[in-house]
């Protein structure tokens, strides 16, 4: 499996560390109800198909990447830097 880091180019999967679903980007407000925090930390769509998840290029440029890919075929559809994503935070 290979990911194309926007900064470093196509690299073997072993350069990256996987974290989890895109949900980890949507941090609730500090005073959000417990349900929101439960969803953020634990509950997942976990689709069999296209998903978006987070990978860290720790053997490369230290970018966190948002990867769009298919969990059934392992096809990688898109890779973008978390910091540059559209509608990104702050």
């Amino acid at each position, binding site marked *: 499996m290979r990911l194309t880091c926007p900064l470093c180019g196509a690299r073997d999967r072993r350069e990256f560390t996987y974290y989890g679903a895109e949900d980890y980007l949507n*941090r609730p407000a500090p005073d959000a109800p417990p349900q929101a925090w439960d969803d953020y930390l634990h509950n997942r769509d976990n689709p069999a198909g296209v998903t978006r998840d987070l990978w860290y290029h720790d053997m490369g440029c230290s970018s*966190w990447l948002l990867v769009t890919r298919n969990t059934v075929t392992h096809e990688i559809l898109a890779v973008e830097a978390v910091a540059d994503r559209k509608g990104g935070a702050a």
Partner: protein
Amino acid sequence: MRLAGKGLIDRGQPVTFTFDGSTYQGFRGDTLASALLANDVRLVGRSFKYHRPRGILTAGSEEPNAMVEILEGNQQTPNVRATVQEVFDGLAARSQNRFPSLKFDLLGINDRLSPFLSAGFYYKTFMWPRPFWEKLYEPLIRRAAGLGSLSRQHDEAQYEKAWAFCDVLVIGSGPAGLMAALTAARAGADVILAEEEARMGGRLVSDNLRVDGQPGVDWVEGTLAELRALPNVRLMTRTTVTGAYDDGTFGALERVGLHCGPAPHLPRECFWRIVAGQSVLAAGALERPLAFPDNDRPGIMLASAVRSYLHRYGVVPGHRIALIANNDAARATARDLMAAGVKVAAILDTRPDASVVEDCPVYVNAQITGTAGRLGLTSITFRHAGGSATLEVDTLAMSGGWNPTLHLTCHMNGRPLWREDIAAFVPAPDAVPRLTPAGACNGTFSTAGAFREGQDAARRALAALGRSAPDLALPQAEDAPYALAAYWETPGVEGRQWLDFANDVTTKDVKLSAQENFRSVEHMKRYTTQGMAPDQGKNSNVGALAVLADATGRGIPQTGTTTFRPPYVPTSIAAMGAGGRGAGFAPQRFLTSDQASRDRGAPMIEAGLWYRPSYFPKPGETTWLEACNRETRMLRDSVGVADVSTLGKIDIQGRDAARFLDLVYTNTFSTLPVGRVRYGLMLREDGHVLDDGTSARLGEHHFLMTTTTAAAGLVMRHLDFVHQAFCAGWDVRFTSVTESWAQFAVAGPKARDLLATLLGEMPDLPFMGVADVTLGKVRARLFRISFSGEHGYEIAIPTRFGEALFRDLVARAEILGGGPYGMEALNVLRIEKGFITHAEIHGRTTAFDIGMERMVSAKKDCIGKAAAARPGMTGPERDQLVGLKATSPMGAGAHLFTPGDRVHRETDQGYVTSVCYSPTLDAHLALAFLRNGRARHGETIRVVDHLRKIDILAEVTDPVFHDKEGVKLRA
């Protein structure tokens, strides 16, 4: 028997080898199998379950029978295919899975007992009495099972791993593969051509084929000459592509030194990771055996294998040969043999309407009903259109048609498709992205067809790569149609008809599994073990499937198929794990003081990937504890020096640095004055403690964060995440400087004196202060922090000066009556002070548990704060950090009980995390987590360590045992 003038072996290079202690001659270019056949050795192995005598079935890596042990000194390699192992001078092979000898094998009795050893019999018995399973039945079964043996010696040999990248990977070098490689190469693409065999050419070098009017072998040589001359082509022989993985990544096993005998300069094998833009699968096809009673005797071989032995090795496996086949193509075997002057007793054709025109007798509608010959075939009995007959033959060539070698196309879950016309499975289109099958592996069995598809596949690959394909005329070659009538077993006969030779699965077993309702093909496979042997069912899956389909009244496509998984051929653990031996498994990190510590006799112990000194023994000390006690006292009384460089150091800069630290630490850092250091606690977003450490403010927008050794990488990743995910716009940057600075703790009442002698002028640092200092011309940093509870400093210096500074500090310390101290003393010192490490913050503890709830600022948000507020994360039912004090040793990992309670999980009150003997307090101390512990200081608790056989009482105390007020720290 070897024929004069035939074969591609090097007759100028005779070699001598042994098999089961007997010495034989072969030639360079022989496999062990061809050399044994040349010497008329037919009995090579014993089968797995019934210990049936077995010979050589194939001429390739799919061989299910002829597996041997290769011996090298006290080392041996089991389950080596005689059909793959090349002979060299001194090769020593031994048969396996027999006792006491290959000819006389005691467990041959299993063959007699076969009615009771039918598929799955073991699920139905051996249940009673219960303890007999481990004591009797299982050991007996285990001893009887298995094939070859490992030596039990460490495998000290060399293995390698490597990467390769190319535009086009071509797998297989038969006509399709060579044509694909040539087409892609001429287009200028980077090409890797991988071939499992020692010689390129596939069937072109194993069959008597003509290409463009010349012998196929010559055409192969010409083509290879051109490919070799091209700089963009890499030819890899003896290289089996073992697996297809995501995004054009393939695994491949190269046999580097295995054919050379002892060659210390060569690795035995190299495991390749090949990354290809496009790939062409041209892996050919494997001939299928036929099922008939006792079809497993030595001397019964695949028809194509007989041709391979004839054309490639100049060997005929017997003196009187018969052929049985269900197709036209196999007749080449008989014709080629006769052309070479070998007697062919008869051709048996299973088809009623087959041609009878040959230079030997031909029987149509033939079905073999039995064979004879205990250790090797002596005769076959068959019925045919005109009656029945028995023939004295010592060799039977058989062909049940061909199965495309589509295994790699299954590795990414592709499901092959059944083609009725060829009675075989072919690859599903696009089963592996960017891979195109061509030729026989695609179900196209003529040579001309293979050339054509090879070229088409290359064109397709080139188009995808954006390259134009060269104009290249297709060579002229045989284009005969593939005429076959499916034939799976001899109907209506008793006797066992083997499907899976290696696992001893017969048609009866498959039928029994259907009878017992193991009708799904996967159930059948698992129940009978069909296809789970070393050949992964390459020889037998399709036949077994057909028998199952018949037994269950379904067609083959409805019955489905089991899938093939990587690796395509069994691949050694050593090759895929090359580099992992010994210390190679993980990086080793060494302190700058490493040599200095070793010079002083310090035992170095692992701390994560680092090595740290455990203690520094003095003459006369006999135990670690003596040294540890001395070092602890030394530090409390005078001064000690320790290398603390393993702690993670992260340089943090930017206008929003302070604000950022406020977000990742529970406590506030924006209020920290420049030149000061603060202890910080970090939570995971799920509210548990992630790490702790100090951060120093070096400038308004410049911090230096310290992490624990264990969590250095984790914290770095965490900071990057929080920044990039939640506040990418903030002006803050992180750099790991762990390896840029060597850092030494200098602690004890005389620490200041020591540093004064070093620095000349000692800066007036308050407790938790930091200052730049210079050592000679070198800029260094001085922190007044302490992990020991003593007046203490840490001095940091660029790594290249680390060793010099360490030696210098230790020398100065010794003048003052101090010296270096190691991990053991460090641990005692921190326990005495109640400082925590990852023994306490083990991932399940909250700030509340360790008594740091108040460090979670109420005034601001921080990572983990919301989740830490969940009801289960605080409260009296949780275990809280306490100290324990006792008069005898406690064990970390002991559990705590209220005296008088029964000792049971239900009454468990907590557990001990860290223990030490404290020379300072002359007491045994422990840190522990105790249910509602903070409310229980002063209680007596029972400490039970079953494993270490400790059961004592201890006093529950505050976790800080020594200088609770911190007078010494601030002195």
